[in-house]
């Protein structure tokens, strides 16, 4: 015999049958069932195989404390591993399978592990498979041990995130939570009350308890109706509080569509809420503890409170002829209610020598055999329990005398109740041992007060009174501590403590013998309390056993630390919309569409999608880059440089500020002129470089590298607001206001002179490193004659919205002169030919200005600037620092960035003189060009070195970085 449907069941609708599939077979349940309740109603007891020994396992609990009945839901892209069967709502067409069973649930080959159980104690793997290497054995062991399988396809679901705030957040929808929500809701406060499950009312729903003169369901219905009618109260079911953080922040995971048939799901699957609450009330209930006796993992052994929950919620008797084993009152009430629903209680065994007389009398009246001062010694059965041995306990709690074997189809156990203190503890609350309950209860009341069972208060009347601010501290009826049931002092090696991780009382004893005496060490050595249930049924039992073994009281042992999440949360809901293209914002150029239309290959550089090159039909990318480079060298090219950082700095002290920011002196710059400048951080490290332009006496335009605009703007503000608060300066990042086109090449001026403008582009009127404002092609334009290519070059900035008009004008005027578009790779080749520094390529976190040829600028500067003091540290002025040089390959073949440079004859030695930082094929020189940072580089010009490139030694020579037009004659045209 096993489970069956009985009457009642507040959650189910018997008029709506639901078909589902489990382990390849078809079943039916009712709307409102969970997978666990529907399977129990169908007489199924075997739910899975255990993690390590592949032992047959059934369902233990009725909520997310379930350690055993772990399932794989659905298949393919929709599959979700390791869900707890009591927490999976049934829907039409649901398809689930057990985890960790091979080849099948009924016949599991890996169960042979169980035969050798006594050889596989805690840490057996680590101790045994050490030679030669644990990694050798790990794959096979991982295959044998484990839970469900992760999906192999992309998640087809979407997830949402939202923030909310409220005066009062009530976590938990049972009696305590509803009472608290009513109290605060009636007082006019904004209240959010959440419950993890589908239904409200907690354990009392569907039961026979009387609440304030009404039966439980009537009271709950009335409370819900009143709450729903209050405009200041929000109710959310299927919403689990998963973490409690600083300053009243609680994370909630709302399951929006998980309970619906796959085909009926619309919109996001789950929603992550970040709630800031003025006050948090924790009405999270309590978890029942199993009893730890031999074979307590046989299917059919379950928590008494869980059996009662199935009866009340789903109208299911998990067992029709169970034995009740307990150390407290709660399981007696469960026994009587199950008997009323049609179960035949085979016996009640209570560890206490003298349970309350009214309970014993009631059992006698019902003809139930009662064993006082007794406990289960061992369960019998393989895939389902069929008997249990009950024996007497001596005064020390050890089994004594002959055991009596009682036939049954279930053992419903209760080892006492542990308040769900997780959220309280996560938010920093302290715990104390309640000696009557033998469990940890919340101690400090600051921040998030706990209420009801979560506070260790199991009295309906007192919980209601406390919710209204008038409760008393109540004394609970004492349970008899019974952490591990054994004959003699040694815990039984087949008495399970943590069912999900296959940790037995014997494993805890082994850990204690090996001196793992801290509860944190016990957890990590035995894995007790780990995995998806995080020890909700096992932690307190484990601590109790350790306390017995060490002879130290439980408060001295303490608990392991509770950390979020309270229950596993999908990665999808944490990611929300930040997947795929939503992972981070990609910035589009002002002329993105024009580049794409012109055949550009686009890639991401520093957050911007930019043209790599514009390959023509039949042309490779390298060929396109070479053609574009030669066009700039010999005619004229056009490049979009809009991402270049542009920060306006204005005010009477603007020059003073920039003198303190740049290595170079800025205050001597005349209006209308540009200067190249280096910025350092306070460590003296090169942070950014760019062109600074003086627009007017009190007005500068700071140019930054494309990836650094935001950071430089932020640093300027930090200095102004935090250090030099006396300076009268304002800054504004205008990068996104101005689109920039760079026209470069010997014919650049000719092209510009063909466009209507009030600017004189003449050689003397507009020399190199100067800036003009005016109109070009009818557009407001800021034009700087600066060059990153070594050719005659203008950077033309126009308001972002005008970019396309400037583009068209330049293309039209350039066409007769062979104007060519060029991409970022051509620009990089041009600057490597010229030996120009690229911050982030040549420089790293140790590069200072003197390493890249700016010792003169440092020496010439008369005043302090950011990072200046760091450039005179002993390490900064030593000989042999890594310095910027060029590298010429002897064989004329290309070299890769990252290739290491080693002194001649150093083959086989370990060590490096530095590495190639940038390299390209120079179509201008028909040779490879490369820059490198090497030890003492400035003194090594002309030296022959060896380069370790992609697994080969190559000969090379150290040369000047600039390989083309070293005199800069092409700039002065």
């Amino acid at each position, binding site marked *: 015999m096993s489970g069956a449907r009985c009457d009642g069941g507040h959650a189910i609708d018997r008029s709506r049958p639901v078909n589902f599939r489990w382990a390849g077979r078809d079943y039916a349940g009712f709307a409102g069932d969970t997978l666990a309740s529907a399977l129990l109603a169908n007489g199924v007891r075997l739910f899975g195989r255990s993690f390590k020994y592949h032992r047959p396992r059934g369902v233990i609990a009725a909520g997310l404390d379930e350690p055993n009945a772990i399932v794989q839901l659905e298949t393919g892209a929709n599959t979700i591993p390791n869900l707890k069967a009591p927490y999976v709502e049934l829907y039409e067409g649901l398809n689930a399978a057990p985890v960790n069973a091979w080849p099948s649930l009924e016949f599991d080959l890996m169960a042979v592990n169980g035969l050798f159980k006594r050889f596989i104690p805690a840490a057996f793997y680590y101790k045994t498979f050490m030679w030669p290497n644990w990694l050798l054995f790990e794959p096979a062991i991982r295959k044998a041990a484990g839970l469900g399988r992760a999906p192999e396809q992309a998640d087809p679901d979407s997830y949402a995130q939202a923030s909310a705030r409220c005066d009062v957040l009530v976590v938990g929808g049972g009696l305590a939570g509803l009472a608290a929500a009513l109290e605060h809701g009636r007082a006019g406060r904004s209240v959010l009350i959440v419950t993890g499950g589908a239904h409200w009312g907690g354990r009392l729903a569907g039961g026979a308890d009387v609440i304030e003169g009404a039966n439980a369901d009537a009271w709950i219905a009335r409370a819900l109706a009143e709450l729903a009618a209050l405009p200041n109260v929000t109710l959310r079911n299927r919403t689990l509080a998963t973490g409690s953080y*600083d*300053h009243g922040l609680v994370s909630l995971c709302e399951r929006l569509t998980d309970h619906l048939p796959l085909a009926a799901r619309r919109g996001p699957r789950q929603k992550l809420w970040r709630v800031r609450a003025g006050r948090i009330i924790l009405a999270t209930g309590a978890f029942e503890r199993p009893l730890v006796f031999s074979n307590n993992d046989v299917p059919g052994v379950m928590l008494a409170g869980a059996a009662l929950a199935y009866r009340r919620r789903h109208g299911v008797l998990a067992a029709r002829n169970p034995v009740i084993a307990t150390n407290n009152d709660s399981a007696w009430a469960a026994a009587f209610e199950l008997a009323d629903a049609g179960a035949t209680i085979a016996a009640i065994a209570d560890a206490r020598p003298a349970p309350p007389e009214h309970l014993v009398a009631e059992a006698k009246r019902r003809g139930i055999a009662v064993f006082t001062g007794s406990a289960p010694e061992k369960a019998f059965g393989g895939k389902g329990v069929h008997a249990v041995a009950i024996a007497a306990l001596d005064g020390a709690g050890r089994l004594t005398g002959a055991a009596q074997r009682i036939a049954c189809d279930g053992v419903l156990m209760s080892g006492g109740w542990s308040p769900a203190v997780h959220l309280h503890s996560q938010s920093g609350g302290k715990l104390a041992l309640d000696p009557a309950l033998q469990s940890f209860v919340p101690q400090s009341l600051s921040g998030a007060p706990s209420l009801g069972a979560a506070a260790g208060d199991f009295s309906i009347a007192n919980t209601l009174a406390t919710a209204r601010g008038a409760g008393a501290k109540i004394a609970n009826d004492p349970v008899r501590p019974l952490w591990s049931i054994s004959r003699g002092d040694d815990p039984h090696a087949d008495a399970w403590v943590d069912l999900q991780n296959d940790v037995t009382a014997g494993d805890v004893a082994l850990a204690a013998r090996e001196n793992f005496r801290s509860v944190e060490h016990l957890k990590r050595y035995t894995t007790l309390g780990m995995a998806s249930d995080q020890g909700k049924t096992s932690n307190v039992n484990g601590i109790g056993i350790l306390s017995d073994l060490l002879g130290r009281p439980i408060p001295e042992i303490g608990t392991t630390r509770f950390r979020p999440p309270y229950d596993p949360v999908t990665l999808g809901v944490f990611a929300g919309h930040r997947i795929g293209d939503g992972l981070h914002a990609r910035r589009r150029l002002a002329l993105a569409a024009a580049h794409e239309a012109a055949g550009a290959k686009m890639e991401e550089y520093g957050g911007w999608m930019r043209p790599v090159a514009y390959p023509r039909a039949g042309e490779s990318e390298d060929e396109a880059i070479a053609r574009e480079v030669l066009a700039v060298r010999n005619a004229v090219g056009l490049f979009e440089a809009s991402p270049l950082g542009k920060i306006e700095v204005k005010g009477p002290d603007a020059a003073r500020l920039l003198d303190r920011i740049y290595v170079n002196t800025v205050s001597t710059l005349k209006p209308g002129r540009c200067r190249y400048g280096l910025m350092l951080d306070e460590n003296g490290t090169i942070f950014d470089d760019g062109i600074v332009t003086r627009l007017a006496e009190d007005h500068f335009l700071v140019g930054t590298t494309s990836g650094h605009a935001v950071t430089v703007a932020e640093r300027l503000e930090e200095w102004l607001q935090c250090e030099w608060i006396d300076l009268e300066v304002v800054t504004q990042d205008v990068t996104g206001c101005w689109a920039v086109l760079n026209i470069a090449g010997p014919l650049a001026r000719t092209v510009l002179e063909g466009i209507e403008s009030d600017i004189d582009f003449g050689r003397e009127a507009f020399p190199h490193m100067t800036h003009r404002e005016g109109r070009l092609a009818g557009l407001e334009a800021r034009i700087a004659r600066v060059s990153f290519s070594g050719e005659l070059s203008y950077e033309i900035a126009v308001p972002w919205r005008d970019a396309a008009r400037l583009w068209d004008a330049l293309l039209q005027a350039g066409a007769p002169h062979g104007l060519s578009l060029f991409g970022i790779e051509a620009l990089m080749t041009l600057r490597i030919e010229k030996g120009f520094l690229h911050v982030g390529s040549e420089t790293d976190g140790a590069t200072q200005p003197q390493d890249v040829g700016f010792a003169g600028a440092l020496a010439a500067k008369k005043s302090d600037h950011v990072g200046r003091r760091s450039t005179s540290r002993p390490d900064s002025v030593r000989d042999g620092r890594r310095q910027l040089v060029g590298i010429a390959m002897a064989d004329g073949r290309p070299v890769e960035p990252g290739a290491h440079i080693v002194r001649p004859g150093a083959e086989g030695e370990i060590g490096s003189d530095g590495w190639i930082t940038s390299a390209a094929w120079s179509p201008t020189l028909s040779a490879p060009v490369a820059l490198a940072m090497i030890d003492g580089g400035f003194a090594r010009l002309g030296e022959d070195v060896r380069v370790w490139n992609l697994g080969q030694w190559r000969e090379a020579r150290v040369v000047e970085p600039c390989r083309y037009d070293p005199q800069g004659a092409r700039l002065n045209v």
Partner: protein
Amino acid sequence: MLLIDCPWCGPRSEHEFRCGGESHIARPGPPENVADGEWADYLFYRTNPKGEHLERWLHRFGCGRWFNIARNTVDHRITAIYGMTDPKPEPRA
């Protein structure tokens, strides 16, 4: 996740802010008068107290202003929020 009461924008979630580390650190200078050790103290050495810590924060995704906070490093209580030029608040336990 802290809830930070920006002096200009009101209470906002921590992820709108950037922590700039310990505040009230004087920048030594001029550079030629600063010994290596003094410069290293300025660059690298911080108090790291268990208890009240004075630190500066930027409301980066908000008003863009820097300000000071007194935060207890044990329980993250924020006991004072004050301007960059304001004096240090009275120490609290």
